[in-house]
């Protein structure tokens, strides 16, 4: 009985300690501005939840960039050198998490610039906080829904090409290398983007003379994709487009497709080919194309090679996802430096008018009016890699029309 009471007492004390400690975790309101020589940039990445598998790599890429740019002396605004510090908040793979994270970053850490998130529901969630607060955001992807990105989100930029930008180059590649292809099947997540994507993709297909079959939608929390792939294959496609998703989804769909006997070419969008290879397995990872990198190919730009070196040193890993994240941060700091101001509105106006910008993938231009209605896209020659017999094999740099 005595030990019981002792245990009870210690338990109560433990909880009391946690409660008191939590009060100390609350940082006092910043009365003075942050160190004038450090520029804090926020990052919304998912550390838990299904997206954390890939978004942790994004955070690592951002950290590699932070070290690199500070080693170079940071950036100079009006003669003052500034070191860059990235502050991450966990988006928890959900819209609420994104709202919470962006609230914390904007109101508590008082950042004026943010990198991330990726998925449309998180972009919309965080946008509801950052846009009214006029915080400049560089999101990492776009799925062409109007609330996500467009004239209604004037403070959002994108530093890489996205789904709809890849469609025409992919269709043209099909025509070049697989002239017998007539019908293209499409698999896409049921996340609300499909109704917007379908007409655009169909139209581009008509332009290129290829027939786009009806879209097959899969729920985001599906564990087994076989049924959906069966449906897509029942339309007898010659090629498969897998539009949007993470490697865990793409790899599973590719694997299912190959197992069901589909041997035609399959396309992803922007995902990490190494992760797709891991999930799909060596047997299925063939005749697959994605707009990403083969990290050890000699065709990589000097910056990419540098990123791989740094990644290997710090994380023991060379992932193309590092480049994706690095690039977003890199474009952001360039824009800030070009504008010579820490005011997001000034940077926004300046970025829109930039004639060119350097990216990790090579020289880039600013575009976006045609496709998105807003001149906030960084566009460059897109990398194009394939999976061949279980290995990641570089194809080429392909031109992408200015969005």
């Amino acid at each position, binding site marked *: 009985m005595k030990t*019981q009471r002792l245990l009870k007492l210690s338990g109560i004390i433990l909880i009391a300690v946690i409660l008191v400690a939590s009060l100390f975790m609350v940082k006092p309101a910043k009365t003075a501005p942050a160190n004038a020589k450090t520029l804090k940039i926020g990052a919304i990445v998912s550390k838990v939840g299904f997206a954390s598998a890939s978004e942790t790599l994004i955070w690592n890429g951002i950290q590699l960039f932070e070290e690199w740019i500070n080693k170079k002396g940071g950036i100079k605004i009006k003669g003052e050198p500034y070191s860059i510090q990235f502050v991450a908040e966990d988006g928890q793979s959900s819209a609420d998490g994104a709202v919470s994270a962006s609230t914390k970053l904007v109101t508590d850490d008082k950042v004026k610039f943010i990198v991330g998130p990726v998925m449309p529901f998180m972009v919309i969630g965080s946008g509801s906080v950052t846009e*009214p607060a006029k915080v400049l955001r560089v999101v990492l992807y776009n799925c062409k829904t109007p609330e996500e990105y467009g004239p209604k989100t004037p403070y959002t930029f994108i530093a890489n090409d996205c789904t709809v930008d890849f469609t025409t180059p992919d269709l043209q590649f099909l025509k070049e290398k697989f002239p017998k292809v007539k019908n293209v099947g499409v698999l896409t997540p049921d996340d609300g983007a499909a109704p917007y994507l379908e007409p655009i993709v169909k139209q581009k297909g008509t332009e290129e003379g290829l027939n786009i079959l009806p879209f097959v939608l899969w729920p985001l929390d599906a564990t087994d994709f076989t049924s959906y792939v069966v449906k897509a294959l029942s339309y007898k496609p010659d090629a498969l487009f897998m539009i949007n998703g993470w490697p865990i989804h793409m790899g599973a769909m590719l694997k299912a497709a190959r197992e069901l006997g589909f041997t035609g070419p399959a396309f992803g969008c922007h995902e990490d080919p190494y992760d797709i290879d891991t999930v799909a397995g060596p047997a299925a990872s063939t005749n697959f194309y994605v707009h990403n990198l083969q990290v050890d190919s000699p065709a990589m730009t000097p910056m990419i090679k540098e990123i791989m070196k740094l990644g290997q040193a710090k994380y023991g890993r060379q992932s193309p996802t590092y480049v994706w994240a690095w690039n977003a941060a890199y474009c952001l700091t360039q824009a800030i430096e070009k504008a010579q101001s820490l005011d997001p509105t000034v940077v926004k106006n300046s970025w829109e008018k930039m004639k060119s910008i350097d990216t990790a993938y090579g020289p880039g231009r600013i575009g976006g009016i045609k496709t998105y209605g807003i001149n906030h896209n960084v566009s460059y020659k897109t990398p194009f890699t394939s999976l061949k017999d279980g290995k990641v094999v570089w194809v080429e740099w392909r031109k992408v029309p200015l969005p």
Partner: protein
Amino acid sequence: MATRHKYDSGAFLVKVKGKPFKSAAVPVLVILLFLLPLFVKQPYYIHVFIITLLYIIVVSSLRTIALSGQVSVGHAAFMGIGAYFSGVISKELGWMPWLTIPLGGLAAMFAAVLIGYPFTRVRAIYFSMVSLFGGIAIVNIIRVAQKWTGAIGLTGIPPLSPIDIPGVISITFLGEKVSYYYFTLLLTLVCLSALYRIERCRIGMTWKSIAQSHLVASSVGINEVGSRVLSFATGCFFAGIAGASYAHYNLVLTAPTFGFLPSIFLVMYMLVGGRDRFGGPIIGTAILVMVPEFFRSLKEFTPLILGAIMVVVVFLMPQGIAGLFDQIKARHGQDRRRKVPTHAA
């Protein structure tokens, strides 16, 4: 003063007479909450308090349903019904949120009656399981109705319209966390008072008697089905109100917020706080929602704090945290000679 008897793991015959507040603790707490924005300036922590208060309403309403012996493991879905209903109506039809929030509550209540009635066929754990699936199904239906709810999420929900009585008072809500805080605080106080009063009324007694033994209750002429549906509807009404308020605060809604895991967490908040006392869900929700938020800087280690609290409570506090008071009272109070049972047989 009636003595206390403990039956099973749920039904407590609480004193019907006696002071509602054992000590001055509750009024003091309420006053402190009103003064909170004076010493907490960061909007982020006000945000945490707002969310916590809303969830306190939801979990307390869950307890109201649990009073009648029905532990609903799909309660978050009803919060979602209220949220989406109010959000969609105010967005599409342009009605004021002040009007659509109660409507959201009514919508949730309506759904509860619709669903709760067939669900009265099952009891205890079977009810919990069926409510679990019901909750998931509701969320999926919300997802499927993309035309109104937006498959990615519902955006563009109007915030609370400003209160503008010229010369007297002018309050805007958009972008003003403090205004939302006071609104939420008042809403919480009203809802909790309502739930508390309902519980202490005859209908509350009826529910508790059904929970103890539905056979005996029926034999005394209590309409088991009607009472159970009423309890379910009442709880869901308040959940709907809280959900609708959440919608007009967050301005963005996504279906997973009201899904399977959140429903389970709601039950957990109630159990950890203590199912037997009215203050249980309040304490449980407050600790389990706010503490991980304060420890946010630990990033991926944050859930461990949550786990630690849960483990400590489940091992050492069988009646939850609120039950601590009962245990201490029983040990040092009038019934000194009675042994305190450590857990129900």
